C-alpha cells in the first residue's frame, strides 16, 4: 500500500525496453565501432589467412544484422554470453567467478567513502565558514584532484614501503597464503565462514589500501552533497523549531541529516552501479583480480566476446540498481507514498 503502484508499474514496464537497449549497446559498441579487432589481434605481421581465420572465429566476417540476430538468439535461447576468445571459457563463468571480489571491494570502498564524506560534509555545513569547513573543503579539493590510481600508488609508497603498515599489493591475500574454501567467492566472507581468523586478518590487511583509495577518491561526492543539503536543512524551519524545543545539537543535526539522506542514498546507488566498472583501475593497481581488472585485460587483448559480456552485465546491473534505488527512495520518505 505504501508504494505508488502506478509509478512502480511504469518503471517495471520500462525494464524490457531498457534491457533491449543495453543489449543493443553492448553489441553495437563492439560491432559498429570502426576498426577491425581481428587485425589488431593478429598483429602487424600476420598473413591474410590468419586474419580471416580470426574473423571467422569472432564471427565478424558475417554482415552486422545477421550477427546481431545470432547474438540475441544465443543470449535468450542458450542463455550464453559466448566464450572468451583466449581462455575459451564461458564468459558467464569468468564473470561470476570474479564478481564477489569486486562486490567486496565496492561495498567496503563505498562504505568508507560515505562515512568519511558525510563526516566532512556535516562538519563543513555545521561549522560553515569556520576552520572545520576550510579543512574539509581542502580535503575535498585534494581527493577529487588526485586520480584514483595515482592515489593508490602514493598509498603503496607511503603505507607499504615507508611505514610498512600495509602488505605488498599482490591481491586479496599473501602470495604464500592458501585461499579459503570457496563458498561465496568473496574472500573475506569465505574466511569468516571457514572461521580462519588469521586469514581474515590477512584479507582485511590486504583490502586496506584499495578500500582507502576508493573511499578517499569518492568521498568528495558525498562531502559536497552532504554539505549542500545539510546547509539548507540546518537553516530550515524544522531545525529552528527543534532547537526552540530544546533538542540537543546532536539531535538537531540528526533531524537535518534525515533530510539529507535521500540524496546521499541516491548517490550511493549511482556510485555503486558505476563502481563495478569504475573500480577497474584500482583493481589493476592492487592486483585485486576482480571483474574490473579482468575487463581491462580483455580490452587490452581485444577479447571481443569478453568486452561485450562485461558491458552487458554491468549495464544490466546498473538497471537493477536504479530500480532498487527508486524503491528505496520511496520507502525512505513517508511523504512520497501518499501523493
Amino acid at each position: 500500500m505504501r508504494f505508488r503502484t502506478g509509478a512502480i508499474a511504469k518503471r517495471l514496464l520500462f525494464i524490457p525496453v531498457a534491457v533491449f537497449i543495453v543489449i543493443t549497446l553492448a553489441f553495437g559498441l563492439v560491432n559498429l565501432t570502426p576498426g577491425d579487432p581481428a587485425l589488431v589481434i593478429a598483429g602487424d605481421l600476420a598473413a591474410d589467412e590468419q586474419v580471416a581465420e580470426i574473423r571467422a572465429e569472432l564471427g565478424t566476417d558475417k554482415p552486422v544484422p545477421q550477427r546481431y540476430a545470432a547474438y540475441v538468439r544465443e543470449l535468450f535461447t542458450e542463455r550464453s554470453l559466448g566464450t572468451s576468445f583466449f581462455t575459451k571459457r564461458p564468459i558467464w563463468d569468468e564473470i561470476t567467478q570474479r564478481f564477489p571480489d569486486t562486490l567486496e571491494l565496492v561495498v567496503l570502498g563505498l562504505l568508507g567513502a560515505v562515512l568519511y564524506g558525510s563526516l566532512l560534509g556535516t562538519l563543513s555545513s555545521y561549522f560553515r565558514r569556520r576552520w572545520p569547513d576550510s579543512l574539509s573543503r581542502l580535503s575535498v579539493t585534494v581527493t577529487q584532484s588526485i586520480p584514483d590510481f595515482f592515489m593508490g600508488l602514493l598509498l603503496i609508497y607511503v603505507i607499504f614501503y615507508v611505514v610498512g603498515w600495509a602488505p605488498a599489493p599482490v591481491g586479496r591475500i599473501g602470495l604464500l597464503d592458501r585461499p579459503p574454501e570457496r563458498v561465496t567467492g568473496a574472500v573475506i566472507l569465505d574466511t569468516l565462514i571457514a572461521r580462519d581468523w588469521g586469514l581474515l586478518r590477512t584479507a582485511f590487511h590486504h583490502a586496506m589500501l584499495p578500500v582507502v583509495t576508493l573511499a578517499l577518491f569518492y568521498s568528495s561526492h558525498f562531502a559536497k552533497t552532504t554539505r549542500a543539503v545539510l546547509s539548507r536543512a540546518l537553516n530550515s524551519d524544522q531545525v529552528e523549531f527543534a532547537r526552540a524545543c530544546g533538542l540537543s545539537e546532536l539531535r538537531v543535526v540528526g533531524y537535518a541529516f534525515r533530510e539529507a539522506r535521500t540524496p546521499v542514498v541516491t548517490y550511493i546507488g549511482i556510485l555503486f552501479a558505476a563502481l563495478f566498472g569504475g573500480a577497474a583501475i584500482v583493481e589493476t593497481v592492487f592486483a585485486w583480480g576482480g571483474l574490473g581488472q579482468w575487463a581491462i585485460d580483455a580490452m587490452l587483448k581485444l577479447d571481443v566476446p569478453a568486452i561485450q559480456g562485461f558491458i552487458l552485465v554491468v549495464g544490466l546491473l546498473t538497471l537493477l540498481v536504479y530500480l532498487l534505488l527508486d524503491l528505496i527512495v520511496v520507502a525512505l520518505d513517508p511523504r512520497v507514498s501518499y501523493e
Partner: protein
Amino acid sequence: MSRARLLLDRVRPERATTPEGPGRARQALRTLARGALSHKGLTVGFVVIVLILLTGFFAPLPHDPIQPNPESTLKSPDGTFWFGTDRFGFDVFSRVFASARLDLPIALAGTLLSIAVGIPLGLVASNKSRWSERIMRGLDMFQSFPLLVLAFAIVALTGNSLRNIIFAIALVNVPRFIRLVRSEALVLRESRFIEAATAIGASRSRVMLRHVMPNTMGIVLAQASLAAAHAIIVIAGLSFLGIGITPPDASWGVMIRVGSQNIATGQWWVSFFPGAMVFVTIVAFNMVADGVSRLIGRAED
C-alpha cells in the same frame, strides 16, 4: 532590430548577474575578462594552465624527453636529472613537461568537441515534447553507465589513435553539456526578455540562437573547465592502463604506469612527479571553474 534591442534593454530577467540579449556575448566575455583579474583563484588557475602548456611546447628541456639514456636508469633526483630517471633511462623532468604537449591539447580538444555536440543537442532537448523526455531518460541510463570504462572499451576497440581518444573523451563528457544547456534553456525560456523577444515576433530558432544560447555561455564555460579536468583524468587513466598514449611518447599516464612498477621498491620519483603534475593541472582547471561560476553569480556560497 534597434527597437527590439531597446525593449530588451528595458526588460531584464530576475537573475541580475546574467548578461542577456543578443550582442551581449561579447560584453559578457569582456566582463569575464575584467572579473578574471579581480578574482584571484581564476587568475591563478588560468595562468597555471597556460604556463604548463607554454613550457610543454617552448621551454628548453635539459634532456630529450623521448630519447632514453641507457647508462643512467632509475637514478634518483640529482644535479643532472632533476626529477631522476625511470627504468629505461628517460629523464623524468623533461618528460613531465613534454607531456603537456599531448595531454592538454587532447583534453581541450575532447572538451571542445563535447561542447560543440552538447549545446545543440541540449537546445533541442529543451523543447518540451515527449521526445525530449525520452532523450533525457536515455541519457540518464547512458550516464549511469561506468563511462570511464566505456571510454576504455571504445579506445581499445577502435585502436588507440589520438583521434579516437578525443572521441572517447567527447563522448564521456557530452551528457553533462546536454543536461546543463537543457536545464539552462528551460529556465531562460521562462524569463521575461525571452518572452519579449518572442512577443515581438522573433522566430523560435532565432530566439534559441541569439537569445538563449549566448546566455548559457558563462555556465557552459564553468562546466567546460570541470570537463577538461575530468578529461585529464580519463587520458591519464587510459595511458596508465596502456590503452591510450604509448611509450616512448610522453604522457603523464604513461609515466605513472612506468613508475608504478618501481614504487613498491621505493623509487617514488618516477610516478610522483607526473602524478603531481596531473594534480596541479586538475586543481587549476577546478579553480577556473570555481572562479567562473563565482563571477557569473552561480557559486554555491
